[in-house]
């Protein structure tokens, strides 16, 4: 009996020396995999919700357009505006915007470009249609209405 006791005494504690290393590894993983938002939003973005969502797997193909009321009403007015990258553009600048975005892609992927539109829910369809017409003009016909998932009660 006493023999057994002696043996178990030596392996009493779990070694915790490696614990910080494990936690640091997790920490670095999250730090690296986190993508920090690159665009500063100049327009209001309360997106409407929908149920029939599709996920975009190839993020490199996506370019963003933000539409909504400017946050800074004093200097930009309260009419909905289009934001591309970090500044406001007019509907007739969109063709140019699409061309610049297409240039960033590989030659073989240029016609697969996806425009992701983040449109504030209170925006009127008028400006959205104008943008769509310009996108047709620019031959960027894959369009994503970016929306979060709506919880369905059924």
């Amino acid at each position, binding site marked *: 009996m006493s023999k057994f006791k002696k043996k178990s005494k030596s392996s009493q504690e779990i070694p*915790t*020396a490696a*614990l*910080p290393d494990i*936690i*640091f590894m*997790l*920490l670095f993983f*999250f*730090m690296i995999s*986190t*993508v920090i*938002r690159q665009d500063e939003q100049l327009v209001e973005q309360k997106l*409407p919700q*929908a*149920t*029939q*969502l*599709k*996920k*975009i797997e190839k*993020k490199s193909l*996506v370019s963003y357009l933000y539409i909504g009321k400017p946050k800074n009403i004093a200097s930009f007015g309260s009419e909905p505006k289009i934001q591309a990258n970090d500044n406001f553009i007019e509907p007739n600048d969109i063709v140019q915007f699409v061309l610049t975005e297409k240039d960033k892609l590989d030659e073989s992927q240029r016609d697969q470009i*996806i425009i*992701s539109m983040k*449109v*504030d*829910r*209170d*925006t*009127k*369809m*008028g400006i*959205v*249609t104008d943008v*769509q017409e310009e*996108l*047709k*003009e620019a*031959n960027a*016909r*894959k*369009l*994503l*209405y*970016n*929306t*979060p*998932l*709506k919880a369905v009660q059924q």
Partner: protein
Amino acid sequence: MRGKDRVTQGVNAGSMADIAFLLLIFFLVTTQIATDKGILIQLPPKPDPNEPPPDIKFNQRNVFKILINSNDDLLVEDERLRDVNSLKDMVKEFVLNYGRNPDLSDSPKDAIVSIKADRGTSYETFITVYDQVEWAYMEMYGERVGMSADDFRKLDLSDPEQKKIYNQARDLGPDGKPNFPKAISIAQPSKSGGS
């Protein structure tokens, strides 16, 4: 002297794990994984100005008309609709009619759902309506291949096995055109204020 030194030899690393945990939890909480989710649509090509627009006569019964005015009211098949959520079942009934009811479509192949918004319609209403129509088609496709609408929507078309199921649901004909297409048309909106 020696004995004393030995006691304070190593840095106390016991709380290191706590500090790392704190940092980890901070990053976990503040991280927002950017999601690119939404309703994917394919815009029609721009009409060629050198060619006159093709003159296609649609049989009126094959077009399911949804009009939205600038007050976000809905007019579906010339009747006022108050509950947007009933739209899904109306679309399904319309598409799956197979010529029985003379007011509804001849066949899924001919059926077209047309959504026409006003320039003053709010984007939220438009998305809700489009979502309902999309949902109706996903349910119909899902039923054809014995899947739920959600599972059908998540099919990965780059995988040949799943693409096969997708094409089976759309009843792809020998000419490469589906016999059960998802024909949702977004019409040019009328000027603000108009019907």
